[in-house]
């Protein structure tokens, strides 16, 4: 059996450093296994989050050798184990301790987005009818496990710290899922423009690249939303036509 060296960030909001740990690597192991093994054997107070160990809950986000990933879905055999492997917390959020960050901002952002508001039911028994083809896109967005890795890589948040103004890719996906929901009757476009500042996104697609659920965040969610915002607020012809349509 092989040994690997991990350099894991230890510290809190006041500061910290990488600490080195050697641990045995067995077949099929993922980074989370190694981190939990280190916790169990050498560093009982090493803080990290995890729940499902199967890529379903989005708890174990971290930066592994600098790449934002789920620790539970990163297999050791995809990493060069002859060199030390670094594991550090997400950078776009304040650190609580070790690998645990304060992601509460995300929960507050979500609360600000207007909730689902369905049209009146289609059938007398209070149910609706929807075709599968009409919900495929929304179902793609609803796969989101709220790992916040896309938030972590988005330069608007990570580098420019626009948390006050920009809601980030995760909540653009969330808004898209609501806006494209066949039953929804709410309009969130003004909020997306003014409070969410969707305009800050300059389509670098970094978010899409890291999404562990392979949601095509930029192409399928953000760009169509941007188009809707443009149609609603900037395009004079559509705006003019809309005046008539509303009647």
């Amino acid at each position, binding site marked *: 059996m092989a040994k690997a060296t991990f350099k894991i960030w230890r510290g*809190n909001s006041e500061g910290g450093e990488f600490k080195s740990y050697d641990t045995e690597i*067995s*077949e*099929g*192991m*993922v980074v989370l*296994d190694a981190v939990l093994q280190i*916790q*169990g*054997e050498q*560093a*009982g*107070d*090493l*803080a*990290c*989050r*995890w*729940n*499902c*160990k*199967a*890529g*379903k*809950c*989005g*708890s174990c986000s971290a930066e592994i050798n600098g790449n934002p990933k789920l620790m539970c*879905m990163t*297999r050791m055999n995809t990493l060069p184990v002859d060199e030390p492997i670094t594991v550090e917390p997400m950078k776009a959020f304040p650190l*609580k*301790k*070790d690998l*645990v960050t304060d*992601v*509460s901002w995300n*929960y507050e952002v*979500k*609360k600000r987005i207007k*909730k*689902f508001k*369905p049209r009146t*039911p289609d059938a007398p028994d*209070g*149910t*609706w*009818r*929807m*075709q*599968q083809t009409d*919900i495929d896109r*929304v*179902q793609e967005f*609803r*796969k989101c*496990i*709220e790992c916040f890795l896309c938030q972590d890589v988005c330069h608007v948040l990570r580098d420019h710290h626009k948390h006050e103004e920009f809601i980030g890719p995760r909540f653009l996906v969330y808004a898209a899922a*609501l806006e494209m*929901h066949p039953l*929804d009757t709410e309009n969130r476009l003004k909020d997306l423009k003014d409070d969410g500042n969707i305009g800050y996104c300059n389509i670098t697609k970094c978010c899409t690249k890291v999404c562990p659920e392979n949601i095509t965040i930029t192409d399928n969610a953000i760009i169509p939303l941007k188009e809707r915002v443009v149609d609603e607020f900037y395009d004079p012809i559509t705006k003019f036509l809309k005046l008539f349509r509303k009647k």
Partner: protein
Amino acid sequence: MSEYQTFEHDVLVIGAGGAGLRAAIEASAAGVSVGLVCKSLLGKAHTVMAEGGMAAAMANVDDRDNWKVHFSDTMRGGQYVNNWRMAELHAKEAPDRVRELEAWGAVFDRTKDGKILQRNFGGHRYPRLAHVGDRTGLELIRTLQDHGIHQGIEVYMEVTVIALLKDGERVVGAFAYEREHGRFRIFKAKAVILATGGIGRAYKITSNSWEGTGDGHSLAYDAGAELIDMEFIQFHPTGMVYPPSVRGILVTEGVRGEGGVLKNSEGTRFMFDDIPDNYKDQTADTPEEGWRYTQGDKNARRPPELLTRDHVARCIRREVKAGRGSPHGGVYLDIAWIKEKLPNAAEHIKKKLPSMYHQFKQLADLDITTTPMEVGPTTHYIMGGIRVDGDTQASTLPGLFAAGECAAGINGANRLGGNSLSDLLVFGKRAGEYAAKFALENNFGTFDNAQIEERARWALEAFDRESGENPFAIQNDLQEMMQDLVGIVRVEEEMQQALEGIKDLRERREKISLTGNIDFNPSWHTALDLHNLLNVSEAITLAAIERKESRGGQFRDDFPSKVAEFGKVNFIIKKGAGGQMEIRSERIPEMPEELKQIIEEMG
């Protein structure tokens, strides 16, 4: 008063899985103030992992379905030791609870005529599971979460309850710590709902997350409430077995519902070899008939792979023991074979079972559209739990309610797949409703500070020891012991050994010492969780010893058959006056005529 920060709510819900969220929404709708605490972040509870679907007799796919069939399926699956009132309410109310989710934004897979699609699952006579691919739990928890955050519920994330507070017999609050800085918190409440989920972490091989340490079971027990049916543990037949680091992770029953078959190393579909008598006339005679069933042929009967989980798990164990297992000690689950039947099989599999495809591809380097999976039993669910009233979800202590996996009754000796998610909704709602009612009718109670100070001292003890035991090592030893001695196949002698072992582990727990300080310290959290794991392990073992027969989730090698007398009783566990665990049996109340009749009619 005490120096600890104190919060007051009319209703305090402990646990934010499906049951806790649904309860909090309902209580809040009744106009009372609601606090919701959970050990992890919101939306990460175990419920998020549920895959296959939620059972509700909506009859969208097969119009022969109705609540009566669902009721009788649930009772048969539970081998008739269920709380029949809960099984009845569940079957009647589940369809409304599912439709309500749609009104809150859930997006279920659809039938051709645009209704909620339903799929086949073990033990359900008709296609009954509303689902979203194989990520139904995510859809359920996210829908409740996104709806719930707008209902004025106060959420306390990463807060762990370590004791219930009492005023005489009545439960009047909870004592907790927050993980980040280890600070203690007091929650005063007029009514408390436990919705803490399961106990899987008592076993080595499990599909459960670290949260599944039986906290609610143990909190209720320590407070003096009764537990029931603790011997009944569900070992899910299909967990991953390879590579070692993923052992136990669930492979949804949906794979078999979509046509996946179980084979041994000789290539035999061994499930055809052992079909229990009471399921014979519901089970396919030939592989061909089984396949037609999975494809929606109403005249076909279900393949034996979709028999109840307890039975399938034991058949797998038998094959492995007889030397017909796969290289890593499981059997083969093959969905790739359906390419013989369907032109675009690979695409179909990816669409129907996306997370399974993903999970095997990423964690095992295996493509399920071309290669059979290796699977074996994994500890999945506990049918037993806090004893509750079927209508109100009230425990045996005033002011304390329970819902979801930590409450017991609906499932009897074995749970049917899909019945948990619907149980969370049906009884979460009821718990919320009746807890709110209780809160409106009662004032805040009082409790003495001694309760709190004693618990705080207990919680911090381990920090004072210079050297001692490692909590992770104790947890590991407990898990191995329960796996070996109180697992799928049980015998008296081994279980007596386990009771001794639990005693030793309790002593070792008293000697734990910890590294680091109180800030977000997993070794400390584990040390505290261990107390709960030891309580539930003891309860499981005691009850399993007393039930000298085999039924559902309990299989006794020394009493391999069902015994009619035991079919008439439940086992009940309670803390004795001297602090020791006590067990007694109680007769199951007589079922009303009309329910009896349904069971007879449904055969």
